[in-house]
């Protein structure tokens, strides 16, 4: 896409050998935004981010400027926490930003902290990302040495400390309140909201939790203006965005695109089509939590937050997983459900028990022990986790992890029910069994 401006990946594209270094960052205009930002009033920097209309890139898509506006006026200290716990199956975009352009994030953190009157920021990076963590820590060390971090930054009177914190293998810590518990040295269990973190977050203090990609955009916004960012792409999906493409595509990888192109263009023009010229059977449009799309209904839809939402799914974390015509969709759904069963924190019964039962039922269907009644039983368990099975999902749980496990099951029941039935029937339906064996 030659007409698309690159914001996040321009430097790493142009300078693959050293885009992560201070030397290259400064040589390509790095920390210029910080100098400019520190000459403005903090409220002006916040206003730029608000005007950009950027929606959070972590998954929920909540407008960042609005989130920032929820901070109570008087309470101090405030904290900024960067969510680098990227763990949604299919997602690997933040990893690239952390590894290949860590200074872009660090500059975004300093500007955002200045805007929000934060003096201690944290970068929470998943434990399985040691290389990204090393790169960010190194960038932070360089920034301290250059006077971009620490006390009286660039003689502005503004002080900021940044601490990198590693997770230890828990997807749920990507949920912002679970992340805060983890950062406090507790089990990564989500908190009941409200209160929201902006009011009562880290150590009970007002806290903003933003995704790596979201904050990596801030230097560009300060240099070019929030309005300039807002004019890129469709009105309610402003800006460029990193999509992680994986599965059965010829050229998997991260693609920075302006939203609004069609899924067909994304798969066939950008990602090189499907290997062996196979047909697409279905795809996950926004991470493992998202209901699946199928070519007949969705291939020519524009890739925007709103269009995807209107058709019963979400762009989520920007992870697109493509499955070709040879894919066993029951096995694929089982793999996704198994993930959520493993990652359930166990606080809420519908999620803890439900995801486990869903996984076991899919497993026994896969192993020839399925019963036709399992089709309705699966949906019944789903309904107990997410009543009404509607979109966006309702939930009987504290956080959306449980309803996420419902997505793949609803998807195969909607688009491939005959295939699931055929699998059960061809193995010999076990409706004769009083109690089916559980694998």
């Amino acid at each position, binding site marked *: 896409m030659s007409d698309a401006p690159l914001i996040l990946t321009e430097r790493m594209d142009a300078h693959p050998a050293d885009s992560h270094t201070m030397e290259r960052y400064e040589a390509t205009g790095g920390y210029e935004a910080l100098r400019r930002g520190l000459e403005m009033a903090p409220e002006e920097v916040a206003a730029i981010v608000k005007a950009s209309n950027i929606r959070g890139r972590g998954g929920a898509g909540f407008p960042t400027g609005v989130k920032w506006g929820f901070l109570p006026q008087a309470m101090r200290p405030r904290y900024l926490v960067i969510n680098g716990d990227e763990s949604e*199956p299919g997602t690997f975009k933040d990893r690239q930003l952390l590894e290949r352009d860590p200074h872009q994030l660090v500059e975004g953190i300093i500007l955002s902290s200045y805007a929000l009157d934060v003096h201690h920021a944290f970068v929470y990076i998943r434990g399985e990302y040691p290389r990204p963590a090393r790169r960010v820590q190194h960038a932070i060390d360089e920034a301290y040495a250059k006077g971009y971090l620490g006390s009286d930054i660039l003689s502005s009177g503004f002080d900021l400390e940044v601490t990198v914190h590693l997770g230890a293998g828990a997807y749920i810590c990507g949920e912002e309140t679970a992340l805060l518990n983890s950062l406090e040295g507790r089990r990564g269990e989500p908190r009941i909201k409200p209160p929201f973190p902006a009011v009562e977050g880290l150590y009970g203090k007002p806290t903003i939790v933003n995704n790596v990609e979201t904050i990596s955009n801030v230097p560009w916004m300060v240099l070019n203006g929030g309005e300039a960012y807002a004019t890129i792409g469709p009105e309610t999906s402003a800006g460029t965005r990193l999509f992680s493409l994986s599965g059965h595509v010829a050229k998997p990888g991260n693609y920075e695109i302006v939203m609004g192109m069609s899924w067909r263009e994304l798969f066939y023009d950008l990602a090189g089509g499907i290997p062996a010229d196979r047909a697409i059977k279905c795809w996950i449009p926004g991470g493992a939590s998202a209901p699946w799309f199928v070519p007949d209904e969705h291939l020519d839809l524009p890739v925007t937050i709103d269009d995807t939402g209107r058709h019963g799914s979400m762009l989520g974390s920007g992870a697109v997983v493509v499955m070709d015509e040879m894919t066993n969709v029951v096995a694929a759904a089982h793999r996704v459900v198994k993930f959520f069963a493993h990652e359930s924190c166990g606080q809420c019964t519908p999620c803890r028990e439900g995801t486990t039962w869903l996984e076991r039922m899919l497993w026994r269907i896969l192993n020839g022990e399925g019963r036709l009644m399992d089709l309705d039983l699966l949906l019944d368990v789903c309904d107990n986790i997410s009543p009404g099975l509607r979109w966006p999902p309702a939930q009987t749980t504290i956080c959306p992890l449980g309803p996420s496990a419902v997505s793949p099951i609803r998807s195969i029941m909607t688009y491939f029910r005959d295939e699931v039935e055929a699998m059960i029937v061809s193995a010999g339906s076990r409706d004769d069994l009083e109690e089916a064996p559980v694998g």
Partner: protein
Amino acid sequence: MTERTVDQIVPGWTAPNRERAATLLAAYPERRSAVMPLLYLASLEHGYVSDDAQREVADLTGLTSAQVQSVASFYTMYKRDPVGRYLVSVCTSISCYLLGADDVLDAVEEATGIPDGESSEDGLFSVEHVECIGACGGAPAVQVNYELVEGVEPDKAILMCNWLRTARPEVVSSDEMQSLFGGQRSFDWGPAEQEGAVAAVPAFGPYGSAGEA
């Protein structure tokens, strides 16, 4: 009651690790926040998160052992049993699954001679399947001591395990393994790094777990 120093609480730890512990405890507004990094440090000291390790972290942070245990047991990367010198983690989540991850896991089990979730008697290997490790564009992906290798086909996975057994690298390097056994990557990694993992703990300077490769 005067507060005990790190040196008094964990006199058996190496001097650099005692220094790191003091730095980590001072890095957060509240001491409790240092629990997770300290559990990594304690893993290095003990080889895993033993009962002693949990008690030490409790003493360092002012928590009870039960509180530390509740944290340690929540996260999969805190190993509460002795773990092999090389922890081989095979991603079997959706994107890796679609590109043959189950065959990679089979290959690793065959090459190491141990099943998923267990460790070899000689202490050389532990094998586990893991959920998504953020390498979906370079599927199927494997980590050794959390150092990543992307695009690992089953035959290369066998070669990799054999290489670990014979070469026995002191420091496990992502770049070295990728050049020897890797394939398709999620993105251009850029220049090779000098740091790698000295144990089955994420290689990170402040935690003392990164070595010069």
